């Protein structure tokens, strides 16, 4: 995500601290005496989300928030030194979990794949187990408490794990633009509303029962949740889980359930969340596969069409061109006026026929991405040539190029990657052409990203891409341009993804496209 400004950063911190305190206070229910451990802790999700999204520099904000919560809500049962210790242990624990999520193989925050969800759950479970151990040990040492330490550890573990499993997926997904839109879109869906009503009804039913039967009938909650998971995937399940958790807490308070039952209910909720999320992510994966298959089929159909058109149109174009040349030949044989414009006009007919042939050829080449011929190649060199060539062709646009100081090698199909950059440059050129009075500028730069990727940015001073069109422009046959076929970007994305990279557009007042490619690890450096 783009680096937020200083002011924006402080705003985010302030919102975080307030939200953290509110959640901490709201969830400070049924604390275990001495250790102050509660069976539901959603606030660590906020801390981890902050550390994942902003980075480890936010750790002091997390520490201050925990400290403030300890002092404000648990003042009567804690001391300043103890609160400081708790804050330090928890902040370090959360920071470790955030690092595990953003480590060498970061979890994709959009949570579209089973692997991402599974790794998220493992990090949460193991992380809160270890953090709980550290917390309980430090309290034992400083206060000399021994009794109930194991139970406190168990409670902390369950409480933190449930709290995070239930709310962290939603928070992380909200940070992803596509997912956020998906979730907001669901809010308007009647079906989703009905499903939420079913969830509330199940909750009411469970908590209207006597306490001894509540656990027995808890499975009723599975029905609406699995319904949601199957219909809407993770985007629907994550908010529903938060909803269910809040419902359970209200139900527990309303029906006066005992503290032990609350813990048991939370374990069941954890099972519900894990089952729901896995069903949901499998649904998401299948959805994604079917969408990408549809895209591929569309492109394949377009490819066949292009080939057929090429043949059908090239024949008459050939004849047209030959006839025009023949006319010139006839003209040359007969006596004609010295300034007869006819030969020139006939020459133009030929030139236009050739141009039409060229357009058809390019269209056909565009769809010819079937087989990849990947070779190791220096990206700096390949891209520099294209940018330079482009700059020569368009002297009215200020084209800048910033290469990496060292060579960067990637295993790529040169023709295809060149096609992608040319396509982005052409789009940028079309965009800046609308700038009649303001500057026409295109900046291309190559930079190294973490985790062995290289990133190529194409920025232009054009109007940029509005937020609501940012996914649409990648769909086949969608185009903003009057004469656009709507295949360039969708094809470019297919090419880059087939190389293991990504092609994205960033929001902004100007055009910002970038693509990434995995680097080829060699000893060339």
């Amino acid at each position, binding site marked *: 995500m783009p680096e937020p400004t200083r002011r924006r950063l402080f705003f985010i911190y302030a919102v975080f601290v307030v939200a953290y305190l509110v959640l901490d206070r709201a969830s400070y229910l049924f604390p275990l005496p001495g250790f102050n451990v509660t069976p539901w802790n959603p606030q660590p999700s906020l801390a981890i989300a902050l550390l994942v999204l902003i980075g480890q520099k936010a750790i002091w904000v997390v520490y201050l928030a925990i400290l403030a919560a300890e002092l404000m809500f648990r003042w009567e049962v804690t001391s300043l030194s103890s609160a400081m210790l708790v804050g330090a242990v928890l902040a370090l624990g959360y920071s470790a979990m955030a690092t595990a999520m953003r480590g060498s193989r970061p979890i994709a925050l959009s949570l579209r794949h089973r692997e991402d969800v599974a790794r998220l759950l493992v990090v949460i479970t193991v992380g809160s187990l270890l953090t709980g151990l550290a917390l309980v040990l430090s309290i034992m040492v400083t206060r000399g408490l021994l009794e109930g330490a194991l139970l406190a550890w168990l409670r902390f573990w369950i409480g933190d794990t449930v709290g995070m499993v239930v709310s962290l997926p939603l928070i992380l997904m909200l940070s992803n633009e596509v997912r956020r839109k998906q979730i907001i879109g669901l809010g308007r869906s009647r079906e989703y509303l009905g499903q939420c009503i079913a969830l509330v009804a199940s909750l009411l039913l469970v908590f209207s029962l006597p306490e001894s039967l509540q656990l027995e009938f808890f499975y009723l909650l599975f029905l609406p949740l699995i319904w949601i998971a199957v219909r809407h995937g993770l985007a629907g399940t994550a908010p529903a889980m938060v909803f269910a958790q809040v419902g359970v807490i209200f139900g527990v308070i309303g029906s006066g359930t005992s503290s032990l039952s609350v813990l048991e209910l939370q374990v069941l909720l954890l099972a519900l969340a894990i089952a729901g999320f896995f069903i949901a992510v499998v649904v998401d994966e299948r959805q994604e596969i079917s969408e990408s298959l549809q895209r591929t089929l569309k492109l394949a159909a377009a490819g066949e069409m292009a080939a057929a058109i090429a043949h059908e149109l090239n024949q008459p174009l050939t004849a047209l061109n030959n006839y025009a040349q023949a006319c010139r030949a*006839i003209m040359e044989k007969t006596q004609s006026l010295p300034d007869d414009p006819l030969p020139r006009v006939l020459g133009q007919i030929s030139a236009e026929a050739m141009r039409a042939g060229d357009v058809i050829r390019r269209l056909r080449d565009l769809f010819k991405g079937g087989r990849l011929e990947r070779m190791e190649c220096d990206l700096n060199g390949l891209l520099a040539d294209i940018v330079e060539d482009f700059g020569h062709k368009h002297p009215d646009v200020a084209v800048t190029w910033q290469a990496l100081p060292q060579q960067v090698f990637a295993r790529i199909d040169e023709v295809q990657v060149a096609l992608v950059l040319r396509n982005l440059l052409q789009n940028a050129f079309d965009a800046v052409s609308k700038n009649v009075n303001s500057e026409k500028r295109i900046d291309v730069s190559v930079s190294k990203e973490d985790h062995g990727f290289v990133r190529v940015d194409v920025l232009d001073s054009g109007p940029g891409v509005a937020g609501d069109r940012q996914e649409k422009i990648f769909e086949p046959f969608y185009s903003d341009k009057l004469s656009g076929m709507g295949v360039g970007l969708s094809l470019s994305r297919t090419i880059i993804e087939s190389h293991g990279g990504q092609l994205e557009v960033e929001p902004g007042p100007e055009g910002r496209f970038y693509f990434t490619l995995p680097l080829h690890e060699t000893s060339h450096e």
Partner: protein
Amino acid sequence: MNDPAENLEDRLTVFIVDDDASVRDSLALLLGLRGFNTRVFESADSFLAAASGGAEKWAGCLLTDIRMPGLSGLELLKLLGRGEAPRIAIPVVIMSAHGDVASVRQAFRDSAVDFLAKPFSEEDLIAAIEQSFSIDRRRLKSEMQHHRQQGMIDSLTEREREICDLMIDGLSNHEIAAKLDISHRTAQVHRGHIMQKMGAATLAELISRCRNG
């Protein structure tokens, strides 16, 4: 056999094979105006059918499309290359509205002279045809020379041919006279006739003419 050399240029013809009537007609018109002899065929099969009725004297260039009903242009090219078709040895130029790499490669593997992606410019077309013609001229010339030499050898008498073989083996007049039991003078006369009939001034020339024969 007795075709005089000046007839050669008249024999050079562009054989156009394309299933599209407009392409055929426009090519014939344009090339006709540019002074080329043309013959058009609507398919590879009709070209082969015409060739089977006597294609020995065909010369010039075959200009064929790839995608046609029946035999494709590339199949026709292969057939000519393998010598399976009636004896047509003229160079081939391939035209295609597709121009994919695979067919270009196939065309050049089967020794096509050029590959024209439709639509093509007149310059490219003429250049390809001229190149084919110059290849075919060379072929025709060497063929004619071959015929001429064959004619010279045929004009030698039985005895002269015998002596010619011995000359090529490097025998002197004395040795030939001794071997054939004739006088030295007779051997000398025979040698004079042989050199005259074969149009050779030196022994080396004689050997060269006979070798090709």
